[in-house]
């Protein structure tokens, strides 16, 4: 890999999507009733495409990502419905061997808390090697060189030294790059990055984002980036999914959504993230995300929605598709379109 980003590869829209999620519904049992973490989520990821998933804490972003390779232990998770198709093959939850062969080698994950994601009792080199071993690679000088090369490609200046370090002996930025290397080392087709920049300072954030962009360009892999930070998603993603209370409330090409948000929640998100140049107060969305065990009747966002009307409190809107490949779950856009 060489330094410097290049333009993302063109996405072939006509081809079958690499990863397809249909009707994913995940719930958790709790003393207060069943928590509806993810409700009827469907989306697809094209080859080489990058998708951003945006939402508040508890909106179902992480559960969605973990469910892509059925990683959540069940119980407590209850997979009510959902079908995941990877490379035209269904990923069946009851076929652990097939799942294992996809996990890591085809669909890899980068977690938010890098230091906790690394095993504290193994040196970094060993952890990288374990991943390769799990996918049938032998340990030899070539493998070691490959590990060093992967670390170097993740902007680690002195990979041979980092190999010998325990996770607690390196900085947070290095640890995050190591977790990216960990995901990258098998040359996967899909990298799921769950809030990879949240725990980092601004400069490290920028570096991690550049790294992800470069990886995508060079490996031609798809990236699913989860974040609550719109700026981060805007930089990386071709398409954005906005999640609220376990549902995708709006989706579409990144620039189009940022230019013209249609769902009131997306508008609120954008408004609250953009510092007004005029010096006015930062926009603040009142209220709290709903209790997923006791969702409000009608649209989940209706209690906080500035433009809600009677119908919103009674009936839940379905996704309203637009001609430009976008959709939004809101009665208002339905009205506006008609």
């Amino acid at each position, binding site marked *: 890999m060489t330094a410097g980003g290049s333009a993302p590869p063109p996405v072939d829209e006509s081809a079958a999507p690499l990863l397809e999620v249909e009707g994913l519904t995940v719930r958790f049992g709790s003393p207060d009733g069943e928590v509806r973490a993810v409700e009827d989520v469907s989306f697809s990821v094209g080859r080489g495409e990058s998708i951003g998933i945006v939402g508040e804490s508890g909106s179902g972003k992480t559960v969605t990502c*973990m469910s892509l*390779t059925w*990683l959540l232990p069940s119980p407590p998770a209850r997979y009510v419905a959902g079908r995941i198709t990877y490379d035209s093959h269904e990923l069946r939850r009851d076929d*652990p061997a097939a799942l*294992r*062969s*996809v*996990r*890591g*080698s085809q669909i*890899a*994950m980068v*977690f938010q*808390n890098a230091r*906790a*994601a*690394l*095993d*504290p*009792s*193994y*040196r970094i*080199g*060993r952890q990288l*090697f*374990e*991943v390769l071993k*799990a*996918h049938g690679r032998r*340990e*030899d*000088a070539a*493998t*070691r060189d490959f*590990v060093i090369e992967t670390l170097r490609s993740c902007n680690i200046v002195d990979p*041979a*030294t980092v*190999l*010998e370090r*325990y996770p*607690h*002996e390196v900085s947070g930025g290095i640890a995050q790059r190591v*977790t990216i290397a*960990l*995901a990258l080392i*098998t040359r996967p087709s899909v990298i799921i990055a769950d809030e990879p920049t949240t725990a980092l300072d601004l400069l490290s954030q920028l570096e991690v984002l550049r790294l992800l962009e470069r990886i995508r360009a060079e490996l031609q892999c798809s990236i699913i980036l989860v974040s609550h930070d719109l700026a981060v998603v805007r930089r990386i993603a071709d398409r954005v999914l906005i999640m609220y209370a376990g549902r995708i409330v709006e989706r579409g090409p990144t620039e189009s959504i940022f230019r013209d948000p249609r769902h009131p929640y997306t508008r609120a998100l954008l408004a609250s993230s953009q510092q007004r140049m005029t010096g006015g107060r930062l926009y603040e969305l009142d209220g709290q995300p709903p209790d997923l065990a006791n969702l409000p009747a009608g649209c989940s966002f209706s209690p906080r929605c500035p433009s809600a009307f009677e119908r919103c409190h009674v009936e839940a809107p379905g996704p309203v598709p637009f001609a430009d490949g976008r959709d939004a779950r809101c009665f208002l856009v339905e009205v506006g379109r008609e």
Partner: protein
Amino acid sequence: MSTVLRLGDTARRNPQSGYRQAVTAFARDRGAVAAVVLLIVVVLIAIFAPIIAPFDPNVGDPTQLLSPPLVGGHLLGTDTQGRDLVARLIFGARLAMIEATVPVVAAAIAGTTLGLLAGFYQGLLGGLIMRVLDVFFAIPLVLLGIAIAAALGSGPPTVILSMAIVITPYIARVVYTATAQLKHSLFVQTARSSGSSELEILREEILPHVIPSVIVYGTTNMGAMIVFAAGFGFLGLGAQPPTADWGAMIAAGVTTLASAPWVSTFPGLVIVAVALAFNYVGDGLRIALDPRLRTRA
């Protein structure tokens, strides 16, 4: 653990292997080092007892009954039958060291297996294992041990077996808690997300984190086992006379405690010293075996 890639040339770059780091950290703890030295000496004494012992431990000198220390060549005096206390303590070390280590090692193997299974496969299997072990917690440890020993008859093998049974639930619980916690840790999820199988996760991610706790807990328990075994001996459930048993030696001196205090006192001191030594070693190991604690200066 030493199969990390092929790191021939990295020894130069990072001279501190994990093993060396652990040894260095342990060496910093003076108390633990002194305790290890003491335990090694006790083990050597136990091994070479016939050569070292100045007298026959089981044959008394009828002319030297209850001789005080430093009289007639008896460094620590003699007991009611005129037997040399030094010789009896030396031979008693054999039994004591076996009774300290064997039950703990056996319980560590059984307890780790049970705890790992119960912690990793919570639900029916885990619940069954832990509920059965809970029954053991309901009965006081020593009482249970004595009950088992009394039911099976006296003698060192019974003592060892009953102690092993009694501490297995404790080790299992330590392992269970650690396993249940580790199971949900992010690095286990990372391993799972990178395609590791359940068995690999158990072996590569969970067991290595559990073993240090078991070693530390087990070592500390060896000290308790010394005291336990002495208790069994004191109650006459241990080795039968005339075999030297530290606990039985204390019991033998109880009736003459006022006139000849050395008969009970010296075995008591030895028991305390060895039990403390095991505790110090356990504490030193706790720091030495944790990569995060040991690198702190």
